C-alpha cells in the first residue's frame, strides 16, 4: 500500500492524539475495534467554539491520519454538525482509496457523536 505525503506525515506524527478530561469535554466515538475501525474525538467547547480537540483511533493509516488532521484543525472553529472538511475533501487530501471511504464515514460519525453531546451536554470529566 502506498500512502501520499499527508497520510504519511499525519500517521507518523499524529498531532492531537490523546484524550481531554474535565468538565465540558464532549466525547464521541464510532466504529468497533473488532471490525477493524474505531475512532473517538474529545472536544472542549466554549461559546460554541472548539477550544481543544484530541482523538484516538484503531484503524488503518488513512483512518489515523484523517482523524489526526481533523483533531488538529478543529480548534478555533464553530462546533457544527459537519467536519472541518467534507468527507470528499478529506478523501482527496489523503488520497483515500475508494474501497476505504466507508472508514471516513466512521470518522464523521465519531465527530457527529461529539456534536450531539454538545447539544445535550454530558460531562465525562475526570470525576
Amino acid at each position, binding site marked *: *500500500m502506498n*500512502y501520499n505525503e499527508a497520510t504519511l506525515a499525519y*500517521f507518523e506524527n*499524529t498531532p492531537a*492524539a490523546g*484524550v481531554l478530561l474535565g468538565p465540558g469535554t464532549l466525547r464521541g466515538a464510532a466504529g468497533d*475495534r*473488532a471490525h*477493524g*475501525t*474505531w475512532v*473517538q474525538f474529545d472536544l472542549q467547547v466554549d461559546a460554541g467554539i472548539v477550544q481543544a480537540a484530541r482523538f*484516538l*483511533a*484503531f*484503524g*488503518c*493509516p488513512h483512518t*489515523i491520519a484523517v482523524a489526526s488532521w481533523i483533531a488538529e484543525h478543529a480548534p478555533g472553529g464553530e462546533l457544527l454538525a459537519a467536519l472541518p472538511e467534507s468527507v470528499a475533501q478529506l478523501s482527496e487530501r489523503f488520497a483515500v*482509496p*475508494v*474501497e*476505504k471511504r466507508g472508514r471516513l464515514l466512521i470518522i464523521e460519525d465519531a465527530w457527529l457523536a461529539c456534536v450531539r453531546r454538545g447539544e445535550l451536554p454530558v460531562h465525562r470529566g475526570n470525576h
Partner: protein
Amino acid sequence: MSRPVYLDHAATTPVDARVAAAMARCLTAEGEFGNPASASHAFGDAAAALVETARARVAASVGAAPQEVVWTSGATEANNLAIFGVAEYYGESGRHIVTGRTEHKAVLDPCRELERRGWRVTYLAPDGGGLIQPEQVAAALQADTVLVSIMHVNNEIGVIQDIARIAAICAQHGSARLHVDAAQSAGKCPIDFANLGVDLMSLSAHKVYGPKGVGALLVSRGGGAGAGAEGRAGGRRRESVQLRARQFGGGQERGLRAGTVATHQVVGMGMAFELAREALQAEAARLAPLRERLWQGLAALGGALRNGDARHSVPHLLNVSFEGVEGESLLAAVRGRLAVSTGSACTSALREASYVLRALGRDDVLSESSLRFGLGRNTGERDIDAAVAAVGQAVSRLRRLSGV
C-alpha cells in the same frame, strides 16, 4: 538512509554471489550460452552438460534420482503440473483429491479449478497449531482418490507436516499419489525424497539463495525406494508416476515440460541447492536460537500470540499476532526499519485476513495483525534486536493511539 532489516527470507532470498557468478558464465559468448537441446555441436553439448550437472545437484540435495527432476519456472508451475498432470492422467480411474486448507494458493487455486471442472476436493482443516493429522488424511481418502497434496512446511507459520506418515497412508490406499509442496523446506530441512515415499515434490530456487524463475518438480520413477522404516508402506516397491503434460512444443524434460531449458537458471538452482545442503545443519542450528531470541523479545511486549505449533516448526520462520493493533498500521509503522510480511493479503486497497491464520482459529483482527519473520543467512543478533525494537515501538504507539 540505511536499508531496513530484511526478515522476509520466506518470501525470497538474495542470490548467493557464487550462484550469480556461475549463472553469468552461461549467458555470454565466452561462456556456455548454447542451447542445451542442440546436440549437433559443442556449444549445445557444453550447455547440456551443465544442465545435467545441475539436475544431479538438485537431485542429490533432496535424495532423488537425477532422472526424477523436471525443470519448471518455479514451485507454482511445479504445483500446477503435479495437480493437473495427475488429475488429467488418472481422471478415468478417479476424480477425488485431498488437500489442506492452509496450502499455498498455488495448490488451492488449481484444486478450485478442478472443482469447477467436476472434480471433488476435500480440504482438510488443521488443528489450532496448523498441523494436519495423518489420520485425517486416512479418513478423507475415498475409493476414487487419485491425489493427496499436502505441503511440507507452511509458508506463513512454518509448521512441518508429518509427510512420512501421510505417505504411508497413501501407499496403503494404493491409488492416491502424494504430492508435496516443498518450496519452503527444500534446502532448509533434511529431505529424502526416495525414502519418504512421496510421489511428487515441488521445489523452488529463490527460497534458497538461487534465482527467481526456476524450480523443479520431482516425479518419482518408482523403484526400490520407500523401504525405510519411516518410509512408505514398509518396503513396498514404489510405482512410477505418470503425468499429462501441460505444455507442448519440443519434448524437453521427457515431454513433461516443453521449452528450451534456461541453462543459467538451472545452473543457478543446482549450485544454490548444493550450497544449501552443505550449510543445512549448521544454518538450522544457528537460526533456532535467533528465532527464539526474536520470540522472547516480542513476547515481552505483551499481547503477542505465536501462530503455529512451535514444537513442529522450522527454525527460520516465526509468525506472531499482536493484540490491540491494526495490521495495516502495524506494517506501515515498521516499514521504514523492517522488511517483513503481514498476515493479510492485499486485494486492491482493502486487506483480507490471512486464510491460513483463520484456519487456525484466529479472528480477523488478529489474523490481520500478524507479522511473519523469515530469518536467513545474513540474519544476526543485531538484526533480531533491531526487529524487536522496531516492532516494540510500533506496537506501543499504536496501542496508545487506539486507547487500548
